[in-house]
């Protein structure tokens, strides 16, 4: 039934639709550089979504937990074998993505008789020198993009675009950890709110942007947060240059997060 080319194209198109549907309920992930490294933030329910991959690599994911686990393990395996056989400085985000998981994800996506990976992945890499940070975002079809200062995962491209625009508008100079936490959490709230809105709009997010006003006030985002994060956990992790030893990854504890988050937010962390 897929022997004719146009049928195959149609099948891949259907697959795209199916996958887009799967991410609608997902929680966005935000990554942002700050004065001592990279901050990753998301809001999760039960299963964690932020992970340590290697000395200078961290992962944020969206999608099906089992698929995310599978890819996380193959990244861990690749990174550690490479780091052992060559050297830790040869384990770079670019290599892990380009020659590691992106081809695997692409192949699974295009093999229409098999199940695709229901995942979007953000791989953050702390550079050997300050200012050389790299953020790689891999889509469910295996395409990837690299950026230097901020990157996000969200249910659809328009939402991602709006979140990135918000991050860029909020950040002028490299923020402190405290500032970065606030900005990242607001960007998450913006993304989550947009996803819910487009979710209600059954026509689907086919338009270019979500028409969210450019200037979003913090108070309304905090209000949205208070409504949504009650039974969830704000998950935050850092690739912190000042961390002693070779591993730079550190999960931020909820007490520390309580101190870092803006005071006017009005959320009591459990």
């Amino acid at each position, binding site marked *: 039934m897929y022997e004719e080319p146009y049928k195959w194209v149609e099948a891949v198109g259907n697959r795209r639709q199916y996958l887009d549907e799967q991410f609608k309920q997902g929680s966005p992930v935000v990554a942002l550089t700050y004065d001592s490294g990279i901050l990753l933030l998301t809001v999760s329910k039960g299963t*964690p979504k932020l*992970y*340590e*991959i*290697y*000395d200078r690599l961290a992962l944020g994911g969206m999608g099906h937990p089992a698929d995310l686990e599978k890819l996380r*393990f193959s990244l*861990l*395996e690749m990174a*550690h*074998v490479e*780091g*052992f056989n060559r050297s830790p400085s040869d384990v770079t985000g670019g290599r892990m993505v380009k020659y590691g998981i992106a081809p695997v994800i692409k192949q699974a996506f295009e093999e229409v008789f098999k199940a695709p990976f229901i995942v979007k992945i953000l791989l953050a890499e702390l550079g050997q020198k300050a200012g050389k940070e790299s953020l790689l975002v891999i889509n469910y079809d295996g395409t990837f993009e690299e950026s230097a200062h901020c990157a996000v995962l969200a249910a659809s491209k328009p939402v991602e675009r709006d979140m990135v625009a918000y991050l860029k508008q909020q950040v002028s100079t490299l923020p402190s950890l405290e500032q970065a936490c606030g900005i990242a959490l607001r960007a998450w709230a913006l993304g989550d709110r947009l996803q819910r809105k487009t979710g209600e709009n059954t026509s689907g997010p086919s338009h270019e942007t979500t028409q969210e006003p450019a200037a979003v006030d913090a108070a309304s985002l905090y209000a949205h947060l208070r409504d949504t994060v009650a039974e969830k956990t704000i998950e935050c992790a850092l690739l912190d240059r000042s961390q*002693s*030893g070779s*591993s730079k990854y550190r999960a931020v504890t909820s007490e520390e997060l309580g101190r870092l988050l803006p005071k006017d937010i009005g959320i009591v962390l459990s």
Partner: protein
Amino acid sequence: MGMQGDFYQLLKEQGYQFGASVAAGEGREFMTATTILAFKYRDGVLVAGDRRATAGNMVMYDRTDKVLEIDRHSVMAIAGVPATAYEMVRVLEHSFKYYRRTQLQELSFEGKLRAVSKLLKDNVAAALSGTGAVVPVFAGYDFQQEAAKIYFYDILGAEFEGVEYAVSGSGSPTIRGILHYLNTWGERPLAALAEEEAAIQALRLLTSAAEFDSATGGVNRESNLYPIIKLITQDGVRVMPDDQLKRLFESKVVRHV
């Protein structure tokens, strides 16, 4: 296999071989030309080692670090063949990290001890042929027991807990007696010493070892060379800086006659 978080197993599956068996020699004497020591002090464990590397009568290198950090809370001090010892440390370092990152929890202290034993056991053939004997001292902070601990090994991989102290290397017979004496009849037992007092004793012990063992390098003040001293406490591993060692050495170790 990944679900077990066993990096060593993963390496083996990829064709890696540790402690390759070499045609057995004529039962050569095991060279452990060095001195390493570890003892418990008030805040945790102090691990120290001299810095000399030798090959027979030849001094090969005078800046070796034999007290190697494996992760934030454990170190391995090495005596024996450096090539094998460094390789062991590399395997252990990656194994502990891989376990933590895959299993999302730290490998237990007991698990770390087992990992060291396993490598030594796989190394027996090379050790017996005279090309790869390693006799390490492993020390780390055990979060389950809330205490810093010391373990020493024989070349076959048997582990023994050094309740108060442990030593290894060719210079160790000299200082083993001193440690026993100090701990039993000294003003205070080793476990009651404060950090700097413990460091002073470590410097004196290594200087004594160097006095009687040609393979142990002492302090070389002209080249500003001091032994390596690392401290393990609940907060992790810390290296005692050279300028502090210099100050302690000059004020408390050198005899001004």
